[in-house]
C-alpha cells in the first residue's frame, strides 16, 4: 500500500488541477471516508450522504482551478462537502423527523432496556444532532467526529477562530440539554 505523504498529496492535487483524472480518482479514494463521514453526520441519512459526497467530489473537480494551496486541500474539500450536504438537506426539505419532538415522545415512558439499547442510543444521538442549527452542527461534527483543530475548522468554514469556539461551546451546551434526560444521566452513572 502506497504511503501518502503531504508532498504526494500536493502532487496529486497539482496533477488533478491539470486535468489528470487518475490523480483525482486517487484523491477521491484517500478522502472518501472522511468526506462521507462528514456529510453523513450533517445529513443523518446514508443514501443522502452517498449522493452528497459524490456531488461534493464532482463540485471539487469542476472548481479545482480555483483551489489555492493557501488552505489545505482537506479543508477546501470539507467545505465543499459540508455545503453539498446542506444543499442536499434543503433540496430534500429536511425529510428527517424533528429530533427534539422525537426525543420528547420517547421520554414519556422509557424502559431501561430500550434506553440502553445501543441502536436506540445511536438513533437518539443522531436525531439530537440533527436538531441543532446547521452552523452549530457543522462545527461540532468537524471537531468531535473528524477531530479537526480549531484552526482547521476556521479554515474549512471560513470563519474566525473566536466564532469556532463560541459555536462549539453553544452546540455542546445545547446538545447536552437535548440529551440530558435520555442519555446523559445514564452515561454519567456509568462513568461513575
Amino acid at each position, binding site marked *: 500500500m502506497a504511503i501518502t505523504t503531504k508532498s504526494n498529496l500536493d502532487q496529486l492535487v497539482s496533477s488533478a488541477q491539470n486535468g489528470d483524472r487518475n490523480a483525482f480518482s*486517487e484523491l477521491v479514494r484517500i478522502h472518501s471516508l472522511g468526506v462521507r463521514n462528514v456529510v453523513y453526520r450533517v445529513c443523518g441519512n446514508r443514501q443522502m450522504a452517498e449522493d452528497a459526497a*459524490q456531488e461534493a467530489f464532482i463540485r471539487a*473537480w469542476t472548481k479545482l482551478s480555483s483551489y489555492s494551496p493557501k488552505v489545505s486541500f482537506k479543508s477546501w474539500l470539507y467545505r465543499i462537502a459540508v*455545503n453539498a450536504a446542506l444543499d442536499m438537506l434543503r433540496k430534500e426539505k429536511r425529510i428527517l423527523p424533528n429530533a427534539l419532538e422525537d426525543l420528547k415522545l420517547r421520554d414519556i415512558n422509557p424502559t431501561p432496556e430500550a434506553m440502553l439499547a445501543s441502536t436506540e442510543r445511536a438513533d437518539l444521538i443522531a436525531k439530537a444532532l440533527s436538531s441543532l442549527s446547521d452552523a452549530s452542527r457543522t462545527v461540532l461534527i468537524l471537531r468531535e467526529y473528524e477531530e479537526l483543530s480549531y484552526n482547521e475548522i476556521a479554515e474549512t468554514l471560513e470563519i474566525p477562530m473566536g466564532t469556532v469556539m463560541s459555536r462549539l461551546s453553544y452546540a455542546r451546551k445545547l446538545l447536552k440539554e437535548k440529551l440530558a434526560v435520555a442519555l446523559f444521566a445514564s452515561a454519567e452513572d456509568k*462513568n461513575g
Partner: protein
Amino acid sequence: MAKHILDSLGAYLDGELRGRELKKVETHLSKCELCAEEYASLKSLSEILEEAPLPDFSSPDRFAADVVLRLPRKEMTSIRSKVLEVGWWLAPVGLIAIWVFLGITNLLNDTLLIANEFGFLNSTATSLISSANPDAIWSARLGNFGFLAGNNLQWARTVEAFTRTTASHILWQLSIAVLYLIWIAVSWVRHEHRGFGKSIEG
C-alpha cells in the same frame, strides 16, 4: 477560590490550550469541584457522541470509481478557460499598448505638421502629410462653395483642425480609461464571487 474557568473547558478538552493557559486550567480543575464536574460532563458528551455509529459505506475504491464515472469532461474546458484567463489578464496590457501607440502616433503627426508649417519638410513629405491630414475638410468645402472667405475661412479651418485633433485625443483617451475601469470593476466582482462555501454562514 479563583474565578471559574468554564469558558476554557471546551478548548482544554479539545487540546487547544498551550503554556500558561493550559497550566492555569489544570491547576484550577484540581481544586474546583464545579469546573471539574463541568469538564467531566463535556468529556461524557464526547464519549456519547462516539456511540453514534457510521453506516457501512461502499469501499473507497468502489466509491472513487463511481465518482470518476460521473466526472464531467474537463480537458477542453480547462484549456479554453486557461486561454480566457490569460486573455483576461492581458486585456489591461493591451489597453496600455493601444494608449501608448496612439499617443506616439499623434505626437509624430503633430511634430510633422509643425515641421511642415515651418517648411522643414521636402515636397514629397509635404504631399504625404497633406493627403493624410483631413483636418479641415468641412471648412475647405464651405470655402469652395463661397460660404466662407478670408479671415472667417482661416478661423473656421483652425477651429475645425483643433476640434478634430483635440476632441479625438480626448475621446480615445476617455474610451481607454472607461474600458480600463470596466475591467477593474469586473475583476473585483469576479474576485468577490470566487469564494464559495459560505452558505452556512448567517
